[in-house]
Structures are given as C-alpha cells and as structure tokens.
C-alpha cells in the first residue's frame, strides 16, 4: 500500500511539474506570438492501401479558443489524386489545383468549433507517396517588416508564418506479393527491369521548425533518396538538410557486400539537438538484376567517423515500381551512408555454411576476407572449429582430474 502511495505521489508530482512547464511554455508563447492554432496534425487511414483504393486523410487542428481562421494546403504525392472535400466545412472552403488542395477553416466566437477535417484521396495502382502540407494561423498579428529594396511591407517572412503539418506523412500501395489475400491473384510476374538513372545528385531542404520527438519528413524528386524524415531529441529551427550522392574516398574503407552508391547526408544548424530519422532510397532494378543481388540483403550502412567503420542499419523494402525498388532505413544520426547488397550466391553459401558442421571446409566464397579498419582481416585458416573442440575437451579433463578429487565442497587435498 505504502509503495503504491509513494508511486501515486511521485506520479502526481511529475504531472504537476509537467503541467507547470507546459503552462509556462504556453504562457510564454501566448504572450509573444498570440498564436491560437498550436498545430495541425495529419492522420492517414490506412497507411497501406489496396491499388487504386480510396482512403481518408484527417487533419486535426489544435487551438485554444475561438475565433479561428486557418488556411491549410496539402500537396498530394505523385500518382495520388484528391477525391472529396471534407464534410466538416462547406464545399466552397476547399479548392484543388494540380497536386495541391487548399482548405480554410473559419469559426467565429460563439460558433461551434471545428477541430478536424477529413478529405478523401485515391491511391495509384502501385508505389507509395509522402504527403506534405502547411498551415497558417491567419489571426496572428505582427508588426512585420519593410523590404529595404522595395519599401513594401510584409507581415512576416513566409517561411516563418507557414508551419508544417505534423503527424503521418507516408502512404503506400500494397506491394506485389505482399501479404495474403486476393491481391496476389492475377498479378503478373516481376516486371521487366527498365533502366533507372537519377537525374539529381545534390539537393537541400530547409525545415523551419523541428519539435522534440516529432518526426518531420521532406521529400526529394528525381533522386536516389526519395524521402528523409528527421526526429530530433530537442527543439530546433531553420534546420538545413543537405544531401549529395558522392564517391567513396580512399581513406574510407569499403562496406561489407557489394556497394551500390554512397550518400552524404548532412543535417546542419540543429544546435544541440541530436537528430535521428529515416532514409527512403531507391535501388535500380537493373543493378539488382545485373549483379544477382538478393533484394532482402540490401542495406543502408552508416559510416561512423569516430570508429572508422560501417554500421548496417535496419532496412526494409517498402515499395517498388518498374524501374526501382524502394527501401527505408532507420538511422540514429546522419552522416556518410553506403547502400550495399549481397550477391545471391554469397547468401546461399553463407546459409549453407551455417548449416554445415564446423569441421567441414568452408566454401570459397566464405574465405573472402571481411575488411575492417580496426582489425586486420581474419585469415581463412582461422576459421573456428578445432580449437574450440580442443579447449572444451581440455577443460573436461582438468575438471575430472582435479575437481572430482576435492569432493563436492572442494576441501583441501592432502
């Protein structure tokens, strides 16, 4: 009981502290910016859809009090199409143009507040997409600034007023062969690989606001990297993401496996925040086919400058199209990355080796030394087996000759 009471007191103390911190924060924000709309958060339901299916995207608006006038714009991913305006607002308060759809939510004081709008989207037959959006609280007053060149008055710099919509960004169409059910029926075999060449090798993005623990994604077109998501452990603003396809320099060792490409991804101006995140990247079908790469072994590897070694990151296939296979990997930091895969025969050989007794000679493929910057390559003759058996047998001999003489309690030998 007492333990429970102490736990309860601790919980209350933590809650009170949290409330005090939040109250202080909210008070400060209100005093400085008069912002009523705290955030707009997206929910995509479901995040994996059948080909050509309709699904719903919900935007939740968090605000403290009415009145509310907020403008929202969503950018549909390529191949996705907007279907229906939200029913929560009059149809006239929604307008689509190209890949964009704009909404405005207007509630005067005394009216019923609207805190959620849901619109409908149709998915493409294959692939995946990232939703992006921004909102602006139109009731925030600021003195603004005067452009020194033109003398024109601007309320704020646009990038400071338009805030990113948070929450879920990804949707994908159920991949060919994925899961059980009718989706597999009638599906043709793996499509014939078509040549894929990325046209952009360098890009950068500016992210105005990163909030602690909240993931913000940014997409890239015509690049080997299609999306990067950032998740900071502290608030940061005006963070720059720079991505460049690079060549490995001689001072950096080769990663394990067959290398496909190297990417230098830098996150700048994050201050003290440590930024983890996700990288979504494309691998050309042609490379996989030409090099007999086992798709399941494709990995994103992060180069650890401190240790001078490569670390394979958790990587999974998330989609494909006629020319590429799309993978997503989680990374604790951003730095130099290498995409690698293993040849099918290597994988098969490794699997065979694992199932073979140690005394059996290792296949030739397994004898290839694994490069490591910290330790010299292990010679093929050092394959463990005999030494281990010898050590175990020796120990057994020592045990039977010494310990058994001492008896169970290990008394003195006289």
């Amino acid at each position, binding site marked *: 009981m007492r333990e429970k009471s102490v736990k309860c007191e601790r919980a209350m103390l933590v809650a009170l502290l949290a409330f005090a911190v939040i109250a202080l924060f909210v008070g400060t924000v209100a005093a400085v910016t008069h912002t009523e709309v705290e955030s707009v958060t997206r929910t995509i339901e479901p995040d994996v859809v059948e080909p050509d299916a309709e699904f719903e995207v919900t935007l939740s608006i968090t605000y403290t009090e009415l*009145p509310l006038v907020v403008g929202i*714009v969503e950018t549909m991913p390529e191949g996705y199409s907007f279907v229906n305006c939200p029913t929560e607002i009059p149809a006239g308060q929604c307008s689509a143009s190209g890949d964009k759809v704009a909404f*405005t939510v*207007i509630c005067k*004081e005394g009216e019923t507040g609207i805190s959620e709008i849901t619109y409908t989207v149709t998915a493409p037959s294959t692939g995946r997409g990232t939703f992006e959006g921004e909102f602006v609280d139109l*009731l*925030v007053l*600021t003195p*603004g600034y*005067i452009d020194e060149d033109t003398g024109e008055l601007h309320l704020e710099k646009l990038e400071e007023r338009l805030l990113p919509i948070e929450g879920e960004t990804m949707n994908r169409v159920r991949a060919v062969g994925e899961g059980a059910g009718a989706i597999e029926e009638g599906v043709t075999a793996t499509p014939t690989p078509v040549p894929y060449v990325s046209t952009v090798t360098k890009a950068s993005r500016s992210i105005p606001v990163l909030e602690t623990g909240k993931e913000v994604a940014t997409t890239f077109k015509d690049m080997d990297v299609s999306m990067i998501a950032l998740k900071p452990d502290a608030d940061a603003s005006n963070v720059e993401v720079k991505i460049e396809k690079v060549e490995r320099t001689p001072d950096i060792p080769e990663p394990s496996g067959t290398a496909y490409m190297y990417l230098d991804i830098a996150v700048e101006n994050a201050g003290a925040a440590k930024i983890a995140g996700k990288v979504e990247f494309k691998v050309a079908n042609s490379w996989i086919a030409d090099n007999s790469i086992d798709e399941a072994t494709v990995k994103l590897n992060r180069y650890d400058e401190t240790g001078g070694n490569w670390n394979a990151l958790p990587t999974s296939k998330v989609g494909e199209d006629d020319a590429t296979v799309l993978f997503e990997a989680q990374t604790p930091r951003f730095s130099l990355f290498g995409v690698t895969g293993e040849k099918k025969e290597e994988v098969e050989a490794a699997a065979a080796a694992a199932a073979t007794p140690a005394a059996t000679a290792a296949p030739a493929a397994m004898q290839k030394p694994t490069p490591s910057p910290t330790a010299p390559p292990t010679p093929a003759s050092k394959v463990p087996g005999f030494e281990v058996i010898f050590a175990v047998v020796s120990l057994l001999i020592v045990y039977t000759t010494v310990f058994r003489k001492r008896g169970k309690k290990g008394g003195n030998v006289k």
Partner: protein
Amino acid sequence: MRTKGIISIVLVTVLLASAVPLAVTPAAAYEKKIPGDANENGELTKDELVNAILPYMLDGGTLDDVGDAAYIYAYWDGEPMRVTDVAKRNVVLCRPVERVVPAGLLDGVRITIQLGAADKFVGINNFAKRYALMPSGYWSPIRDAASELKDLPDVGGYRDPNLEVILSLKPDVIFEYGPIPDFANTIQENTGIPVVCISNSQLDLDVYRLAGEVLGKEERAEELISYANEEIAKVTEVTSEIPEDEWPRVYCISGCEGLTMITKTWSRYDPLDIAGGINVAEGLPGFSPIVLKTQIIDWNPDIILIHGVSPPHAVSIDDVLEDLDLQTVNAVKNGSVNYTKGYMIGWDPATGLTECFYMAKLFHPDEFKDLDEEEEGNEILKKFYGVDGLYTKMLDLSDRYRWE
C-alpha cells in the same frame, strides 16, 4: 472677454499656420477599404474571405491582405472599426492595428506600453525619445519598461511630425496628443492614415478602453481599469470615513506648460481629492491657472505641494518656505511643503495612482500609519509596466519625502 476672443483667434491662426509644413502629397499607403471586400460595399462576408484565403494557400503571395481580412472578419464582424477619440473625433480603421506611430507626446506611448502593445511601435516621437528614453538623471518608467523604443526611427515632434518618415513606416494608426485635434486632422488628411487622439485626463480611465479597442487589447484595458479602481477604493474607503473638516487644505504649485511658478496651480488634481485633501484652487478656470499671491494667503493652505520630484527644481521647498509674502500661510509656518510627482509631458495614471497613496499618508498620517507607500507604489507600477522596483528607483532619484 474681448481680449480672450482675440487671443483665441491668434492662437488658432498660429496653430494652423504652423501646420502648413505638414502638407505633403497624400500617399496611397492606407486604402480606405477593407482588404478582401471584393464588392467594396464596406462589409467583408465569409465568402469574400474564403475567396481571399484559398488562392493565397494555393498560389502564395503576400499575407498582409489575407491576414487583415481574416482578422476583420473574426474580430470586427467584417466591418471597419469606428471609434470616437478623446478629442471627440470619429475615426475609421480599415485594417487591424499592427503598426503604430505615437506622434503626440508621451500619453500614447505610456498607454500602449501599459497595454502590452509596445511591440506594435514602428517609430517614436522625439519628445518620448529625448525625455523618456535616452539616458538621464531623472526617473522615467518607460526607460525601464521599453528601452528598445529608443532605437526606433524618429518621427518628429508632436507639433512638427515628419510625415515622410511616418509614411515610410506604413503605420496602421497614428496616435496624436488629444488637446491638438487640428494637428491630428492635418496629419490624417495628408497621409490617409487614421489618426486617433490619445491623452490622459488624470484618473478618467476610459482612454484605456479606447486604446485597448484600437490596439486589440480590450481585456488588458479592462484589467487595468478594474485594478486602478480597486486601488483607488483602498484609499477612499479610509478617507471617506474622515470628516471633511479634518481634511487638509492643499495648494499645488504647477510646473505645467514649461514654467514653474509659485502662483501657478492646478484647478483639478484627482489624487489630491482621492487622498482626502481639499484643493483650494478647485474650480478655477483653465487647466493650470495663475493666481495672485494674496489669493494663496487668503486660502491659507495647510499643505503646499510642488510639482516635480527630480532635481533641479525651478521652485524648491526652500523657495516656498523662504518666500516673505507667504510667511503667514499655515503650510509655511508648519513646514508642510513637499514635492509631488505630478505631470511629466502628459499624465500617467499609474504614477497618479501612486500619488493617491503618497498624499493619503501625507494628509492623514494617523489613518495611514501602517501603509507602506513605497511597497504599494512598486506594486502599482509593476502592474502597469511589468517591472519590479520602479517606485523605489523613482524615490532614489528624487528629493521627494520618504518615510523610513
């Protein structure tokens, strides 16, 4: 009467003549229509607002018009704001006030700071800059509460504003000093920008409502008015119980309008009345009338208060005590001559409130013996200016009487 009439005509002529330099080419900086009001009928409907927002969200552009339209729809019911200022002028505002130029003296500056809207200032008049913001030996709460204002562009004086500078700052409203409405009209006509006359008339606190409405700070305005009334009640609850024949007769020496003279006084001084004193000059015509010394002798005040607390003093306590003509006056015989804060380029209701407590303790020492007027003064000024210790700082920099 005839002389007064001639003087009035001459003054008006001089005033208007001095306003001639104000005539500059009207600028189209301020459109007299609500942004987003597509049919220009003076009322912004929800459909018109939606038709302004959606194209902006899809195609980008500037937020100025869209944001202003949203604000007017949400807070002004889609119509322009119409206010009657302290000079009884009707002023129409077609945009929410985000940028303010205080052209007239200090009252507009003080009230805007006290309402928590100092961040809306985009320029500052040179009186405020010179006398209330730049470093000096005398006390100014503005210097502590909003020192950043000293770096704003100088928009000229309250009688000679620099309209070119004002226009370049693109204010949504200009504040002018209440007693000179002709200047306000001239500025408005020549710039197209709405000019609202703001000035304090002692403890008439309605001006906070006017400024609060213009600045979108209505809640803060009501908060300050309620607070001020509660503070006044703290004093009147005590003084109202004291028989009027026990109230001291008080004569104030005025330093208003540039010259301090023993014979210049205040015909009205609210803190004095609230504190339980009888203003011997009450009811005299004019704001700061001049009287004869014989009149002061006839009034025979118990207490004399001299306007201004910071040295050097144009009229000091010693000047009064040593004035040979006044030796028969009770206040002089008893040495009851003190300084009081009074006006400072306009009037500050916040310091006026503190004077209520100061005078109450001075007039009725027994009834207010437990009052810590320094602590009370600090509390009042913190409420209005948001800064600790302002009253103590004032006392440190002044010659005013201070209780131990």
